[in-house]
């Protein structure tokens, strides 16, 4: 590896407007990244337990757990990170609290601390991510990639902008130091924030807004994922052709059926043409736009693999220029 090339992203943060399928995309991305011999960790942080049902798995625990085989032979692990648990971890690690920690929890103090200091929660959560990204086991990285099912676009910049929020907290001491190192990683090429949208006006607008806010906060944007894209290239069909075709194949060719089919075809045509317009707007952001098809049967585990296949074929997006925060630890080797 040349000294000037930025590292490939290893922390993939997947966000999007509510209802655009960001959890699905995060899961598919984790499967896609888990190529032969690779280990990927898929994390959620909002206590929604949205990941487990996609994999037909019981609710994810705070500890990492094997979830599924990746595409061709890798492994995907899952974890639901909880800020209260993370704070307790943290206190135990730095202050040797022992059983006093449990007493504090019972008393509501842990809950109190994570709610009283807006920002502490996010620092703890992103801190856990950094730990998973940089952990080594037996001389190699514990995970080749970490994928986060992140908070929605409306909250994403605040969530990732830990240095700003930590300004409210103590500047000295372990949390302050810790948050600065987390912030360096989040602003470096090790991180990629992927934006998920569906081809509809409001989600696309939110994506454009989020892109602008991320850029303003100097956070690295990865891909734009245009999710739930319907159908093929539209062709012209006339009432006459339709009536003949239906009759030829023994289907009802009455006026109502013909009109209904034409109507459906016309509206899905509008939908398909709208996709082009949305894609254009998104492409103007200058980031690669990945398209995922709408699966008519809904997304189950097989559907996830199908989406993962699509993401895999797209390969790694072109690597952007090195970033100011790239001179960080966290990559393997580095020699």
């Amino acid at each position, binding site marked *: 590896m040349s000294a000037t090339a930025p590292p490939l992203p290893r922390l993939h943060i997947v966000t999007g*407007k*509510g*209802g*655009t399928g960001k959890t699905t995309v995060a899961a598919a991305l984790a499967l896609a990244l888990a190529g032969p011999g690779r280990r990927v960790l898929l994390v959620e942080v*909002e*206590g*929604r337990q949205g990941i487990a*049902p996609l994999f037909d798995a019981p609710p994810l625990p705070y500890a990492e757990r094997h979830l599924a085989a990746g595409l061709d032979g890798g492994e995907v692990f899952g974890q639901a990170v909880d800020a209260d648990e993370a704070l307790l971890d943290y*206190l135990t690690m730095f*202050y040797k*609290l022992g059983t*006093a920690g449990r*007493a504090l929890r019972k008393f*509501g*103090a842990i809950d*109190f*601390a994570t*709610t*009283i*200091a*807006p920002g*502490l929660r996010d620092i703890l959560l992103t801190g856990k991510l950094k730990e998973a990204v940089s952990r080594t086991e037996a001389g190699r990285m514990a995970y080749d990639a970490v994928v986060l099912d992140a908070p*929605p676009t*409306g909250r994403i910049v*605040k969530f990732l902008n830990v240095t700003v929020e930590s300004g*409210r*907290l*103590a500047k000295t*001491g372990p949390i302050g130091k810790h948050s600065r190192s987390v912030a360096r990683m989040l602003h470096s090429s090790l991180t990629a924030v992927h934006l998920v949208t569906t081809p*509809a*006006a*409001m989600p696309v*607008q939110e994506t454009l807004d989020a892109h602008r806010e991320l850029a303003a906060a100097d956070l690295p944007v990865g891909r734009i994922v245009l999710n739930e894209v*319907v*159908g093929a290239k539209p*062709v012209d*069909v006339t009432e006459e*052709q*339709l009536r*003949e*075709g*239906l009759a*030829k*194949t*023994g*289907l*009802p060719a009455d006026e109502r*059926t013909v009109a*209904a*089919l*034409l109507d*459906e*075809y016309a*509206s*899905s045509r*509008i939908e398909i043409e709208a996709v082009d317009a949305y894609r254009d707007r998104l492409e103007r952001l200058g980031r690669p736009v990945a398209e995922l098809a*709408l699966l*008519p*049967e*809904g997304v189950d585990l097989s559907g996830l693999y199908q989406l993962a296949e699509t993401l895999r074929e797209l390969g790694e997006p072109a690597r952007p220029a090195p970033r100011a925060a790239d001179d960080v630890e966290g990559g393997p080797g580095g020699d």
Partner: protein
Amino acid sequence: MATELDLDALLRDKDKHVIACCGSGGVGKTTTAAALALRAAEVHGRRTVVLTIDPAHRLAQSLGMEALDNTPRPVRGLESGSLDAMMLDMKRTFDDVVALHTTPDRAAEIFANPFYQAVSSTFSGTQEYMAMEKLGQLRETGEWDLIVLDTPPSRSALDFLDAPARLARLLDGRVIRLLSASTPGSRRSMLSLMGASAAVFTRVFNKILGGHLLTDVAEFTASLEDTFGGFRKRAEATFRALQDDQTSFLVVATPEPAAVGEAVYFSRRLTEERMPLDGIILNRLTPVRASLSAERALGAAAILEEDEPESPVAAALRTHADLARRWSTEQRVAARYEAACPDIPQVWLSTLGPEVVDLGGLRGFGAAAAERPARSHVE
């Protein structure tokens, strides 16, 4: 099979004064709230106000809510009746509550407190709490027959019920009293009650959060308690107000596993809390117009393509098959709600076309929801 939700009956019911639309993010809560409010005003002649939290820009524009002054403004362009709309400004609502209950000097002190500034603008429960607060204020004026409430875009619909209590707990909880008692400068230590862990706790927290924060919190809560007797009481009162018969909860969901799961969870919780849940609006179903099964359409498409690979008729049939498959997947997902909450009336609503961004769109949405139940497109 669950009963049909009769929205018109609900909107015209003179005894209902509050309708709250709840659901997870991205299901169309704001649109639903605005459409129902418009219909109540235009069709049922009720003096209505819609309280929205975070509407999309164009929708806000069409409702004339661009001025962010935290008071209801009349919506222009109605065919009849009167509708006001407002967008919640949570910081301002909080400021008003403080100002109303205390002297100007005391209020200035509170406003200057850094902890107040943080809680009033960033704390995750504040929006929910202030939505309830604003709702209470609007009710008290007696200016409207009906208030339609859009709920905050929380990570979970349950936050709407839980967050106010959490904020209240935070603001007058015993933890604060304990901490303020063991913060340097105060002699009235409660350490004897808690043993050594409280001391460790305070020390550690001062280190993590900065000593000033605990002091700010302590001062802030003390001044609040002096002025209006505690947040918890206030939160409990608003919570109780939601339980009376004048209120009606509607759950909004889309036919996706996560949204339906959330709707089930929320509906059960409302029932447990004895909140009046009147129905679920299942939004954005795939519109299917031709009553032809996916299998038959695909079979016919395959036959046509044998002779003509690019057959446009086959393309139209495949489009229909896709829609029909999506529809039946959605039906299976929706069935989970019915299995879990069989007594809750439902209304199903197909996607009507492009997104709803103006009064005409809202009118159409309201009419479709109230007049044309969409349950039986494909047999």
